[in-house]
């Protein structure tokens, strides 16, 4: 093959590769900042009340694709705390505009020491939201604590904040979590 033809081919291949490579770059774009817990074993405090206790438990530990068994993260049941802790709560927070809130309260550099997930019963208990919707919100808030960002590109993940019908992480979330920890 003539060198000129080879170079033209390589230029074309390089251009196509650049185009096709963009999705790879955005694959990691659903990571939330640089934040993560110090390691994959995280103290887990379920401060939920009523069925919210069950919902948090299912999303964190007991569903087949809950965060703890589905990813490399291991949630160690614990009392509430502020060191390497993920704490989960529900409450009547009022007309705030949000159904759920994830807060990384104590960070050192990129290391999270204290994360809190909150579910707003003022909305979630008003009869407009199914149990699946509540599980979706709980799943997402807990996912944020572990370092995941919203993902509006998939309808199969609870990290999508435009739907409330996918109460579980998907394989992309699992792979991303496992690459972080």
């Amino acid at each position, binding site marked *: *093959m003539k*060198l000129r033809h*080879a170079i033209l*081919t*390589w230029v074309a*291949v*390089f*251009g*196509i*590769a*650049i*185009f*096709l*490579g*963009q*999705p*790879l*770059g*955005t*694959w990691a*774009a659903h990571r939330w*900042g*640089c*934040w993560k817990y110090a390691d994959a074993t995280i103290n887990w405090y379920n*401060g*939920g*009340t*009523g069925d*919210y206790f069950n919902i948090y438990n299912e999303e964190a530990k007991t569903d087949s694709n809950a965060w703890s068994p589905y990813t490399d993260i291991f949630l160690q049941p614990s009392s*509430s705390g502020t060191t390497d802790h993920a*704490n989960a*709560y*529900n*409450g*009547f927070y*009022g*007309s*705030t*505009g*949000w*159904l*759920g*809130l*994830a*807060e*990384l*309260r*104590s*960070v050192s550099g*990129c290391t999270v020491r204290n994360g*809190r997930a*909150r579910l707003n019963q*003022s*909305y979630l208990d008003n009869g407009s939201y199914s149990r699946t919707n509540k599980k979706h919100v709980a799943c*997402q*808030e807990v996912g944020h604590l572990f370092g995941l*960002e*919203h993902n509006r590109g998939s309808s199969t993940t609870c990290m999508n*904040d*435009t739907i409330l019908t996918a109460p579980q992480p998907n394989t992309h979330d699992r792979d991303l979590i496992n690459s972080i920890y």
Partner: protein
Amino acid sequence: MKRKNFLILTILVALCGLSVSAMLGLQQHQDEKVQVPSRSKSAAVWKEVYKNPDDMVKSVDTIVLAQAIDRQPGRIAYSSNGEDALPFEIVAFRVVDDITGKKGEGIIYVERAGGTDDAGNQVYLDADGGDFEIGNSYLLFLKRQEDGPYYYQVNDQGRYQVEGGRFKGVDKDDPVSVFLHNRPVEEGLQMVKEKRNKADKN
């Protein structure tokens, strides 16, 4: 050039291209979003997430261009098990331009989560764009509380700070925020007014 060598080099070129592209895409994203935090971070599942600006303009109770003039501590909400305290603050705004055309609201009050909890801890929440800076002006899309006397910002799509004569959205990649982000103030206001007028007629 032998066919085998050509194929090997072609594969190498393709891998280089993929790697460069992926790295550039990730770097661009990280430049925009990954910052080492000096305080805490927050994210929310909003009750309303709009797909386009028309829906947001139509849905909210009030749209104002307003200047933040005061912040005061508000209520503290506790989790149902009583262990977790979430403080709120009340931010007062002087209305500069009321797009919704309501009169008699020279000062409006917006409640948002954040402030100092009962243990004296400073709670910084930025899911809505973070603390309002006193003296700065904002275009705000607000709803009235069903259970309180204040307004609340409808979500992170509902705040645009005025900087250098232009609006700055909270998430500039959001499909609704893109509509106003970086747009000159007068032009942005005019567009919002037109959309609101259209919504009122319908």
